[in-house]
């Protein structure tokens, strides 16, 4: 996957949006049941065009939940997990923490 603009949904088809919504519903239900799968597993459930948007959606929820629990989630850890999407990770942390620092130019896995 190549890096794409974070959160951009204009190029997504209706089918993509439906898949993203369904995947988010599954993720949120699993979270409520304290059985949330790793984000990577959720992402694998949708094809590539929808994956960037889905990552943004589920990453927001995970980071938000961790912040609410008093944790201090580390963007670097997510950059390492999702090196194909540095802008998505950066955008989510900027959104939730006010940290607008740019992602690493060459993220490493």
């Amino acid at each position, binding site marked *: 996957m190549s890096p794409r603009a974070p959160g951009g*949904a204009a190029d997504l088809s*209706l089918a993509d*949006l*439906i898949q*993203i*919504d369904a995947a*988010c519903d599954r993720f*949120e239900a699993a979270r409520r049941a304290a059985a949330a799968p790793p984000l990577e597993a959720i992402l694998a459930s949708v094809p590539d065009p929808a994956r960037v948007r889905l990552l943004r959606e589920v990453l*927001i*929820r995970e980071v938000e939940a961790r912040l609410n629990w008093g944790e201090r989630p580390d963007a670097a850890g997510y950059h390492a997990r999702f090196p194909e999407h540095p802008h998505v990770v950066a955008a989510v942390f900027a959104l939730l923490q006010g940290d607008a620092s740019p992602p690493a130019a060459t993220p490493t896995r």
Partner: protein
Amino acid sequence: MPDSNDDSVARWIDGVKAGDAAGIERLWDDYFQRLVRLARAKLAGHARRASDEEDIALSAFHSFCDRAGRGQFPLLADRDDLWRVLFTITARKVIAAVRHQNRRKRGGGRVLGESALMAEGDLADEGIARLLDREPTPEAAAAFAEDYQRLLALLDNPTLRAVALRKLEGSTIEEIAAELGISPRTVDRKLHLIRALWQKEIDG
């Protein structure tokens, strides 16, 4: 809706059409405050006088009674039809009020436009606004009712349908989230999907 008996509702709707005072009073009792809440929700975020939502609701109420009395809503049969027409008239009044405010405030302050009726980030309202961007003539009211049913029928997921209905009734994202027990972000995502579904249908 306050009255679950469609037959009795149909009777007092007939009373409104005939200009009967009791029917109009019943309409006022059951719907005026809903119209005020709808106008208030649609005006949210705009500079306004405290009385604006009541003025708009009052204007919509009188407009409906006047038109009904002149036989302009012959197909009005039950409370669903009634609410759709009242909703359409009120929404149009809000749009007109905002446009009027724009003209008066031209050159100063926040520029208000029809698009500003949308809550920030609430993309679904674009599609809804397109639905509402029609004069509430009898033909338009009937078309709106058809569109309303057709578009709601596209939403086979109960959560999507619940979100759409509440949004059409003027609830905010936060209110919908609280009522449905889901997060505001989830509501926002659902609205985005609803907009996409409806946009595709509207664009054909």
